[in-house]
């Protein structure tokens, strides 16, 4: 058993609460307030995973979202996260953690041998081999070696709510700069939000020494928080900003929003101003074997020591080239470790008081020296210095400088500029509505950043909190390793990219930053290169003899940290994902035993009853007696006003102005490219009042089309469009007995055929409310369509049923209309169909006035004789030809499609199958016989006019 590394006291953990967890099957204990990472460290666990490519043992490297190595499979109750980041997960009782990439355990990985063949498989080696016989011969084996965690079929994430809010100012990051900005902004009566990834406000001052306004930083932060809360600032804790979108919309993921730790919330905040106070991320130093377990970033070591009371090592080496790691050395020393502080700067460049305080504390400061390499395999054991010295150590912490977190600024298309003095990118070009403050802006002096943040928040510099902390050389360019040690120096730990890999890429001319990234995969891991990108640029510049400033950066691609797909989806799950449209009388159809299916986004009865003959039975009823059909989803677009007739004449291919009041007319609409877009029936209720009844799935498009042309060409005061589809329920009654049945509905309309012939419309009443009755037919039989206010759909239906009508579903309706050759636009037409292809060339030939699509009907292609045209198709035998079968001909020894079957059914009325199709040349083909093919099967068919029943239309009055 490894002795605990938890110190006796200190830290912000709750020692009274003990949390049990397992890692790779071993049981451990931590405390409330721990992260998974701190708990593992406190238990002395060193190897937490294996690296992506070479399966090198890796330990915890950081304490934040930049973690490249400590990615674990996490299970807790029904929660499963296949790629949980140990540094971000609060520890919970009962957590089961596993290393993800090892074949075996992190300690014992059967793939560990890969590291020994590393020299043969450098960056991008796979582009140079695996070509014979082809990639697929190797791919499955390579794939099996890749990937991090494992998806589990049983995994289900809970759903997350989205909140959309607006703010005047949104401050991201609640370190000293963010707090100062929020304090300044909130005094002006503005709506301010403050977003912080941690559970507590304060940022670095929670674990670094700083006095602000005479108080320790942590106390000042608590006081600031009280002030902000009193002023009504909305403070989001445990909330990480993900992406900054157009027009200043920020997405934020918030954890722990409810009792369950599974729940997340996604915020979308639109703010007048974004203040980016996201701080900076420490950069590693580059030395041989700088990836060994036990080697971590200095700031992380400080955090683990001070916040989590973890004694990170006994013999610590602190390596740096800047002042920020001095406090770390001191903290490690205070924790009882033996500490060597190795600084690349010569003694004269080091602040003497700092140096003095180190030595006074018993820290061995070694100036003007670099760490050249680390020894040890499964864990660091010693370091070799450039002065030839070797220091035995169990922990190496390092700081190569700091990189401002400019992700959000860059999402908003800000262009950072290189600052050679600090060796980092700072905000460059101004971005409207976005300010960057604090360390993110490349400011390291606490007083300067408090003043600046206050001013940016809208306050006066004089009102800024003050610290009095002296200016320090917080960051400096990362010192690059000098000699060629021959050992590997890791730049990107997650993707296993070394300096040699970068040099290889440069040698092969992949020296544009994006080429380097893609060729070596540097920065493309789940940490998105937060610790590696700037070092990669420095190495690239050095090895290609260029300046970093001229290299440019790779694009910062959102999100800042990976976020669960369930959280992105939000409530767009299940039924709420593209919600289905429903009929107002759906419940009645359910009672009738309807079988529902989705048609073009609407849920509609396909047929009624469970028996196999349902469709045929409904067809027979329609031709023999009467059927009732719920047509409520058909469009009902009202077109009203003195210019209504002119508008319809323009929108419709079929002229409509000549329609008499009280009459109805079938017509087609086209797009401007001439393609048939919809068909429907237009009713003229009064000289200036029309109702357009279009197909269910085209309602929105048709309404938009009418509105578009109205606003484009007509006097807005003279014509008005209103989509009343949802206001009305429409019940269609059809069949020889329909007149009697409609008569029994008591609508108060004279149904006498002389006064109410086919294609007439009249207004009556039903249940005391207005009802509109049109004599139209979908089936070829006598038919009536009755529209009543939506809530009356159910009673009207029931009354029609009581009078003897059989319910009719969509499937049988499909058969009935096909027997008549009535088309469904979209099914019996395609993206090329022009009106004359459907045998409706009349208006094209006759109309001289303007209508939508007019000129497109006269292009050379529109006039070709061999266009695909609507036909009927008959086959021998009882089996309908499958829909989608193609007519074919042999040409130059190859099959060629002549078009296809668009609708096909068994016709109970005719006793044989029927089909409609679009076939080249249509009925003008030389021969009526046609070969058809469907998925390898052949059929022979005969082309006939596209109307199989009652071509004279006598049944309309039958």
């Amino acid at each position, binding site marked *: 058993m490894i002795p605990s590394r938890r110190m006796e006291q200190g830290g912000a953990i709750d020692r009274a609460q003990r949390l049990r967890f397992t890692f790779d099957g071993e049981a451990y204990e931590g405390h409330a307030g721990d992260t998974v990472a701190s708990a593992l460290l406190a238990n002395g666990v060193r190897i937490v995973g294996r690296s992506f490519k070479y399966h090198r043992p890796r330990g915890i490297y950081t304490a934040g979202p930049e973690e490249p190595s400590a990615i674990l499979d996490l299970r807790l109750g029904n929660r499963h996260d296949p790629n949980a980041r140990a540094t971000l997960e609060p520890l919970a009782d009962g957590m089961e953690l596993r290393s993800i990439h090892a074949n075996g355990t992190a300690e014992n990985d059967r793939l560990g041998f890969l590291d020994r063949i590393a020299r043969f498989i450098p960056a991008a080696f796979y582009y140079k081999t695996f070509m014979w016989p082809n990639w697929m011969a190797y791919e499955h084996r390579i794939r099996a070696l890749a990937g991090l965690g494992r998806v589990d079929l049983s995994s289900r994430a809970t759903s997350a709510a989205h909140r959309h809010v607006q703010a005047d100012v949104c401050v991201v990051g609640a370190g000293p700069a963010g707090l100062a900005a929020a304090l300044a902004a909130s005094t002006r009566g503005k709506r301010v939000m403050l977003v912080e990834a941690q559970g507590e406000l304060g940022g670095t001052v929670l674990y670094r020494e700083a006095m602000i306004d005479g108080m320790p930083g942590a106390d000042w932060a608590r006081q600031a928080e009280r002030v902000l809360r009193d002023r009504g600032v909305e403070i989001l804790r445990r909330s990480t900003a993900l992406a900054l*979108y*157009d*027009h200043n*919309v920020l997405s934020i993921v918030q954890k722990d929003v409810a009792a369950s730790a599974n729940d997340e919330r996604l915020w*979308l905040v*639109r703010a007048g101003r974004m203040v980016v106070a996201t701080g900076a991320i420490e950069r590693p130093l580059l030395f041989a074997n700088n990836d060994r377990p036990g080697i971590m970033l200095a700031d992380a070591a400080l955090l683990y020591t001070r916040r989590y009371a973890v004694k990170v090592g006994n013999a610590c080496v602190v390596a740096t080239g800047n002042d920020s790691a001095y406090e770390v050395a001191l903290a490690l020393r205070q924790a009882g470790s033996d500490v060597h502080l190795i600084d690349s700067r010569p003694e004269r460049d080091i602040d003497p008081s700092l140096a003095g305080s180190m030595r006074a504390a018993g820290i061995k400061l070694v100036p003007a020296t670099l760490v050249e390499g680390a020894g040890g395999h499964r864990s660091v054991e010693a370091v070799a210095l450039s002065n030839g010295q070797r220091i035995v150590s169990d922990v190496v912490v390092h700081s190569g400088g700091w990189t401002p977190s400019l992700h959000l600024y860059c999402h908003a*298309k800000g262009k950072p500029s290189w600052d050679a003095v600090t060796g980092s990118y700072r905000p460059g070009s101004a971005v*409207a509505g976005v300010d960057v403050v604090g360390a993110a802006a490349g400011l390291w002096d606490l007083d300067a950043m408090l003043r600046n943040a206050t001013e940016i928040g809208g306050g006066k510099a004089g009102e800024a909190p003050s610290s009095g902390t002296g200016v320090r050389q917080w960051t400096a360019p990362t010192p690059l390793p000098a000699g060629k040690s021959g050992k590997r120096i890791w730049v990107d730990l997650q993707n296993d990219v070394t300096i040699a890999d970068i040099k290889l890429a440069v040698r092969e001319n992949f020296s544009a930053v994006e080429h380097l990234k893609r060729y070596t995969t540097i920065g493309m891991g789940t940490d998105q290169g937060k610790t590696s990108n700037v070092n990669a640029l420095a190495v690239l510049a050095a090895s290609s003899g260029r300046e970093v400033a001229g290299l440019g950066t790779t694009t910062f691609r959102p999100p800042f940290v990976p976020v669960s797909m369930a959280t992105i989806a939000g409530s767009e799950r299940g039924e709420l994902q593209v919600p289905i449209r429903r009929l107002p009388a759906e419940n009645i159809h359910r009672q009738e035993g309807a079988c529902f299916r989705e048609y073009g986004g609407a849920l509609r009865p396909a047929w009624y009853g469970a028996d196999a003959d349902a469709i045929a039975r409904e067809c027979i009823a329609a031709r023999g007696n009467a059927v009732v059909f719920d047509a409520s989803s058909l469009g009902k677009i009202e077109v009203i006003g003195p210019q209504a007739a002119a508008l319809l004449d323009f929108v419709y291919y079929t002229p409509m102005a000549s329609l008499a009041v009280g009459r109805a007319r079938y017509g087609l609409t086209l797009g*401007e*490219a001439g393609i048939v877009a919809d068909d429907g029936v237009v009713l003229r209720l009064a000289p200036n009042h029309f109702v357009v009844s279009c197909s269910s799935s085209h309602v929105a498009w048709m309404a*938009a089309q009418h*509105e*578009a042309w109205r*606003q*484009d060409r007509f006097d807005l005061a003279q014509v008005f469009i209103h989509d009343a589809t949802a206001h009305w329920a429409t019940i269609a009654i059809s069949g020889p007995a329909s007149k009697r049945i409609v008569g029994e509905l008591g609508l108060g309309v004279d149904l006498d055929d002389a006064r109410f012939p086919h294609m007439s419309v009249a207004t009556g009443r039903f249940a005391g409310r207005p009802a509109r009755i049109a004599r139209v037919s979908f089936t070829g039989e006598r038919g009536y369509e009755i529209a009543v206010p939506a809530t009356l759909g159910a009673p009207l239906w029931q009354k029609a049923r009581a009078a003897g009508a059989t319910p009719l579903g969509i499937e049988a309706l499909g058969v009935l209309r096909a027997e008549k050759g009535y088309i469904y636009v979209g099914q019996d037409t395609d993206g090329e169909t022009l009106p004359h292809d459907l045998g409706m060339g009349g208006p094209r030939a006759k109309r*001289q006035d*303007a209508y939508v699509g*007019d*000129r*497109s009907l006269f*292009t*050379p292609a529109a006039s070709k004789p061999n266009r695909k045209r609507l036909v009927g198709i008959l086959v021998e035998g009882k089996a309908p030809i499958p829909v989608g079968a193609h007519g074919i001909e042999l040409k130059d020894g190859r099959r060629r499609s002549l078009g296809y079957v668009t609708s096909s059914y068994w016709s109970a009325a005719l006793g044989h199958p029927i089909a409609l199709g679009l076939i080249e040349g249509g009925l003008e083909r030389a021969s009526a016989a046609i070969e058809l093919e469907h998925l390898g099967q052949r059929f022979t068919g005969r082309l006939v006019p596209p109307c199989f029943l009652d071509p004279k239309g006598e049944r309309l009055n039958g």
Partner: protein
Amino acid sequence: MQHFPCPWCGNRAEVEFRYAGDAGVQRPTRTADDAAWAQYVHFRRNAKGAAKELWVHSGGCGRWFALSRDTVTHTITGSEPVA
């Protein structure tokens, strides 16, 4: 996540709007030749940078308007009713 200023409704989220082509396009008459007609039906200005576009507030008041928008920065510089 753009905000478009509808001349009638003010700033609203982009999801409420539908793009409808270049502003200021004239529909040719039937006498146009094939090429001129194709220009109208299919060809677009597709400007990079400052553009004048036709939008419809389909999820709101339903009105069409001309929006001056930069297609690179997505900055909005004006919106006006179409005559």
